[in-house]
């Protein structure tokens, strides 16, 4: 009898121990979100536009007078956007004013198939292994969804979890990562693909409302596909691990909500309106986001300093620029949304960043323009191509979007990265000696200050 008990006891112990070990292991690797690979889109060279080309397109718009033309050219020349950015095919062919549904679809398909083919090829993961698919394209949403289009093309499985996010602005890429991160916590050993882009072709504004014509000139074509997994056995192949993700939504504030709105102008022409309050809303959203993010990433000493300086400055000051946060002690690299030169400068100033820190964002803005939601990934690609990312480094991504939202996340680099990816042909020429637009002299007359003209800083 006793003998039986002892043997039973000894058999039970190892099984209990292994069970507990499995549980602890699960708890430790619980919901880890790894990036296996990401692929940014480089459109073909026949889609390149430079300032001159853009200038000619604006000239074609009969509704714009000389003042608007001058305003736009000035904006483009001082925007920090270079001469090799890409535009949608229908705009290049001169059909920007009458886009068809098919134009929009082809624009998206060209991007999907190129990046997804490369993504699956590079990682060796088959499309039928994908469990989660999240697509975000803000300004174009046909039926069946773009996500369904991808599923059809790649013959993905029937039980795939698919989400098609739309209307969420330039910060939607991190919202998609948020969805994936949350689902990863409930499902084991899953693969997820996030496809992020923006549709420009069908959204050309053909009117002359000042707040709406700017958008035509600033957005450029681009996109990114990312493969993620939470499978701990693929840890050695992973390149990034998600540490935290913070979302801030300022929609409750009417001013913030109205600052970037898609609407019709007085004559019923649809366009995207950017108000003059945009920088202020962005700053507010940014600081609110930081106040949640900072405790998660700063070491204790800097945290205390931040709280003390923050409470000091916040008391009854009219021009509240906010406390400068030395995030540099917790973060090694900064991926800023390339919304425009003013955005990059503003964020850089608030965080106390050097030119070295801001270089990836500036160069991305120069080489690819404002590609909306996918811009963060081009900035990341630049850092990787410049061999800046070493194992253990922390990368902070910050993006802003209509609504008004500010989303940020922190990635930990899993191993030394050296892939030149989408920057392969251009990285050797970056950073260029000067970023001044070559048309500055040609259009020098633009730079003469005009008394009654106020540009929203972009």
């Amino acid at each position: 009898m006793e003998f039986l008990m002892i043997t039973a006891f000894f058999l039970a112990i190892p099984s209990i121990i292994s069970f507990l070990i499995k549980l602890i292991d699960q708890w430790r690797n619980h919901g880890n979100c790894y990036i296996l690979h990401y692929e940014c889109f480089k459109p073909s060279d026949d889609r390149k536009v430079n300032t001159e080309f853009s200038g000619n397109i604006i000239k074609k718009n009969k509704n714009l007078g000389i003042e608007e033309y001058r305003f736009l050219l000035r904006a483009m020349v001082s925007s920090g956007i270079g001469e090799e950015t890409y535009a949608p095919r229908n705009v290049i062919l001169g059909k920007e004013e009458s886009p068809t549904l098919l134009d929009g679809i082809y624009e998206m398909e060209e991007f999907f198939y190129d990046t997804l083919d490369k993504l699956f090829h590079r990682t060796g993961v088959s499309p039928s292994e994908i469990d989660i698919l999240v697509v975000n394209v803000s300004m174009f949403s046909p039926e069946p969804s773009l996500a369904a289009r991808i599923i059809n093309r790649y013959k993905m499985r029937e039980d795939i979890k698919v989400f098609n996010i739309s209307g969420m602005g330039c910060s939607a890429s991190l919202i998609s990562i948020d969805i994936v991160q949350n689902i990863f916590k409930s499902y084991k050993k899953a693969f997820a693909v996030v496809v992020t882009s923006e549709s420009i072709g069908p959204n050309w504004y053909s009117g002359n409302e000042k707040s709406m014509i700017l958008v035509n000139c600033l957005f450029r074509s681009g996109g990114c596909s990312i493969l993620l997994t939470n499978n701990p056995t693929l840890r050695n192949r992973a390149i990034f691990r998600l540490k935290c993700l913070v979302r801030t939504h300022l929609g409750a504030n009417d001013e913030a909500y109205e600052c970037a709105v898609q609407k019709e102008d007085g004559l019923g022409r649809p366009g995207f309106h950017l108000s003059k309050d945009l920088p202020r809303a962005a700053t507010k959203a940014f600081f609110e986001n930081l106040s949640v993010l900072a405790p998660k990433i700063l070491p204790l000493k800097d945290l205390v300093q931040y709280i003390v300086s923050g409470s000091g400055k916040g008391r009854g000051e009219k021009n509240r620029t906010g406390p400068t946060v030395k995030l540099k002690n917790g973060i090694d690299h900064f991926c800023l949304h390339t919304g425009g030169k003013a955005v990059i400068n503003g964020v850089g100033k608030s965080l106390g960043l050097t030119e070295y820190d801001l270089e990836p964002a500036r160069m991305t803005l120069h080489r690819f323009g404002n590609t909306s939601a996918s811009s963060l990934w081009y900035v990341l690609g630049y850092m990787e191509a410049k061999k800046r990312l070493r194992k253990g480094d922390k990368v902070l991504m910050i993006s802003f979007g209509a609504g008004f939202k500010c989303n940020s996340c922190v990635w930990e680099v899993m191993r030394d990265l050296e892939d030149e990816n989408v920057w392969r042909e251009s990285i050797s020429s970056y950073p260029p000696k000067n970023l001044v637009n070559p048309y500055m002299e040609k259009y020098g007359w633009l730079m003469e200050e005009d008394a009654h003209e106020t540009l929203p800083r972009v």
Partner: protein
Amino acid sequence: MPPTLPNFSNSVKLKYVKRGYQCLVNHLLTFLLIPLMAGILLEVLRVGPEEILNLWSSLQFDLVHVLCSVFLIVIIATIYFMSRPRPIYLVDYSCFKPPYTCRVPFSTFMEHSKLINKDNPKSIEFQMRILERSGLGEETCLPPAIHYIPPTPTMEAARTEAELVIFSAIDNLFNKTGIKAKDIDILVVNCSLFSPTPSLSAMVVNKYKMRSNVRSFNLSGMGCSAGLLSVDLARDLLQVHPNSFALVVSTEIITPNYYRGNNRAMLLPNCLFRMGCAAILLSNRRKDSWRAKYRLVHLVRTHKGADDKAYRCVYEEEDPQGKVGISLSKDLMAIAGEALKSNITTIGPLVLPASEQLLFLFTLIGRKLLDPKRKPYIPDFKQAFDHFCIHAGGRAVIDELQKNLQLSAEHVEASRMALHRFGNTSSSSLWYELAYIEAKGRMKKGDRVWQIAFGSGFKCNSAVWKCNRTIKVPTDSPWLDCIDRYPVHIPEIVKL
């Protein structure tokens, strides 16, 4: 010679055999345990009480032993309870009741079509024939912008419609549940055909001044099954964030999608889609279990996008004149049937009682090994569910599903009546149907409801809810003023 009546005695015997079989298999465990328990009891009686007492006192109860075993039991119990998925409760939901001013009886619709499409009598005739057979009633509603001659589908008008339907539904929901907007942690809005920037979810956050850390999502382009997709997303998020409320808003904005051309496949949606919206409050807080109406048991998603025909079934495209519309292919019924079959094979094992599953398995084996020509056994889903909510996509869809699942008229009554009263409100139709069942006072505690939705892509999503408490006839419901008139008999063809 008079035709002989078929031999009923055989089928009657079979019915009882089947009943007996079901009883046996479903309670198999009980049937096995009873003889075991009887055996133990007999043994105990035989051995006698003194022997048992001796056995008890001979066991050495060391303090260490007792503590260890208690500790172990506690650990295992905790781990077990913590590893179970959180329950997802549907606290309440509310459906938008369109105002009478938006009503579109057949006569209005036909007159309107004639006025805006003067040059195409064939299209008008086609629309009339569709309406006659559609199963819609005279009280369905279209948004104000569509009533104009010609319709004014501006973005402004679409936003107005969105504000009208969404805010009414959410206001109603907040009143019913007593929660405040600041309590919402997760917000998912789905609207297939209208997705402005900032999104409809941002519009909701702005109107109700929700918190800045609300997790909002805006799903678009996902068709009539997007309502259950949103519930799925909310469920996954609620598993990760404890003590949270999720607000799911399902709607379809009709204003921008009125088709003005002549392609027949694209005229169909004009005749069928109507204004509607549903707002649903989900929670994973255990203290809501007393007031929640339903608990989510299963949710299964099936995506047939890999099949080209299924993918092209509901397709937005331009007609030869450049007008954008949604074309519904002729294969819609067949594809819906296929998608449903896939969905059923996944959900069947989760919900069907063991007896049905075994029968299905045996007939499957029989077909594979012995006789491929034998008809496949369709499991009896009436055993697993008490109520059915089938997406009111159109009369044909409901007919087809009734046939496929072998349901009676009463089971599909909710779907047919929702189609009649509200039309095809796309992703929110399931909630109107659920409201019908509640308004009829048929929902009792423990009842299981099966919601099935189809959508472009081609997707088939289904959800199983279990009724948490007997629901008294609600005092506010979109059916309040007309429930006494229902059910109505809907003729095959309504002569116009």
